């Protein structure tokens, strides 16, 4: 690990000023420390933000508000999350390991780096790590990579399960930076790789995630997360789906659907949602809608299976969300 200066921030203002001057925030550190040890990440100045009062989970006007420094495990077990927002709880519990969930913060979860193996191999090209060096995954081992939102420069999937749930539920986030505060949909945090895959998010220099806000609604307590992976637990998604339905008089009134493991960012499926509205919540409806999910998919040599697995996962997730309705 290369040397760095470690500073503890005692106030949000102090942290933002230090980050605006070139410091990097560190909270749980579960991604950053690992990548620093590999020298993939090389920060010179770390700002420890764990003392900031941003770890509270609360309900405000029907919205679930999650502080950016709340730990994954604490959020998943919070009574304000467990029953009212099962999709949030499931997406958290299906991610990482119990130990890592005790350490990792919500803000850090959203900003975690990709798990493409070439990203952490310093002797292989990677446009995300070294812009312009090329992408070793496109002609390499790419069974785990994305089929949606890819470019000729990067095909890595976004690894967060929580982000898929938040994007499905129209969550917003509040950030604070040197020029004040702003709020925007969580979906807008994530960039497509295009020809600048090293730019992953839309935060401005020095901006700090303060909290995430999840609107409540009739669909919330019935929303579900389904994660398909090579192992039963502690593994990243091959395909995952977050589904929320609101059903009245035997017809789907509202539908929310986002998928993970297939996109270069958490992937909202508006076309599938539109195809569900007004229809009877049954398998045929779900299958017809799910087929729209792979429009524009660009499979690689080893991940063709995702084109088949994606609609099947969506159908199962919609059935789960419909079951309890």
């Amino acid at each position, binding site marked *: 690990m290369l*040397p760095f200066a470690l500073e503890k921030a005692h106030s949000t203002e102090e942290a933002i000023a230090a980050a605006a001057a070139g410091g990097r925030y560190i909270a749980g550190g579960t991604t950053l420390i690992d990548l620093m040890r590999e020298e993939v990440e090389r920060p*010179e100045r770390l700002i420890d933000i764990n003392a900031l009062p941003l770890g509270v989970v609360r309900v405000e006007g029907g919205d679930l508000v999650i502080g950016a420094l709340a730990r994954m495990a604490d959020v998943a077990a919070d009574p304000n999350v467990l029953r009212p927002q099962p999709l949030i709880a499931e997406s958290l519990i299906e991610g990482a390991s*119990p130990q890592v969930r*005790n*350490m990792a913060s919500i803000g850090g979860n959203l900003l975690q780096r990709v798990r493409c193996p070439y990203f952490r191999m310093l002797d292989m090209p990677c446009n995300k790590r070294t812009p312009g060096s090329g992408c070793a995954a496109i002609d390499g081992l790419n069974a785990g990579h994305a089929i949606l939102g890819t470019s000729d420069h990067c095909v890595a999937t976004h690894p967060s399960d929580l982000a898929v749930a938040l994007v499905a539920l129209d969550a917003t986030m509040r950030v604070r930076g040197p020029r004040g505060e702003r709020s925007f949909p969580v979906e807008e945090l994530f960039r497509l790789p295009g020809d600048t895959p090293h730019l992953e998010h839309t935060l401005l220099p020095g901006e700090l995630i303060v909290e995430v806000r999840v609107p409540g609604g009739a669909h919330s307590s019935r929303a579900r997360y389904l994660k398909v992976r090579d192992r039963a637990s502690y593994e990243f998604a091959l395909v995952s789906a977050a589904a929320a339905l609101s059903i009245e008089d035997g017809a789907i009134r509202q539908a929310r659907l986002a998928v993970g493991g297939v996109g270069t960012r958490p992937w909202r499926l508006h076309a599938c949602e539109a195809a569900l509205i007004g229809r009877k919540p049954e398998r045929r409806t779900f299958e017809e809608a799910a087929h729209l999910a792979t429009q524009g998919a660009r499979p690689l040599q080893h991940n063709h299976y995702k084109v088949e697995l994606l609609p099947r996962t969506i159908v199962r997730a919609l059935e789960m969300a419909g079951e309890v309705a």
Partner: protein
Amino acid sequence: MTTIDELSSSPAPAEPMPETDAQAQLSRRGVLQLAGAAVSLVVAPSASAQASPSPTERATKAARVRLTVNGEARQLELDPRQSLLDVLRETLDLTGTKKGCNQGACGACTVLVNGKRVVSCLTLAAMNDGAEIETIEGLAQGDELHPLQEAFIEYEGLQCGFCTPGQIMSGLGCIAEGHAQSPEEIQFWMSGNICRCGAYPGIVAAIADAAGRM
């Protein structure tokens, strides 16, 4: 694909040759500590010569850290790069906590920090100032083993033993969190601890039994 896959494709972490007596152990630990001291010496001059770190020259300033480890208060001066795992093993000589993958994937380094199970390889010791740390060395009361340690022996929850300290510390967390109600639940909530020998049935049985007794 993931760090976990990398772990499974790499050779199993090898436990050093067993020492035959205390002398051998002293010398092995002594050598490692000398190596650590040499690194510190190399780092120190650049830190003192460079009063304010410039963007081009990296400097590491020693961090003062207070830890309570197994009930004992410790004051340490540490390189901020040192993980909690390395400080436990190399500075405090508490080598019960094992270094497996050093990537957060295997769970061999699990300890309790302020009562919660964490992987000590993925946290910087300097970021744990003021924390209470519990390691495997703190469980037994004299010659009397902790009930979970007893259960691991009774149900043969180990073969080579390398992962066992991490399994036991993680098992304590699993029980304290209330996630030891059934074998299936224990399997899911112990998934952060890998056992290359495959002693899982014994591990699950030991945790289930101890959960009922604790």
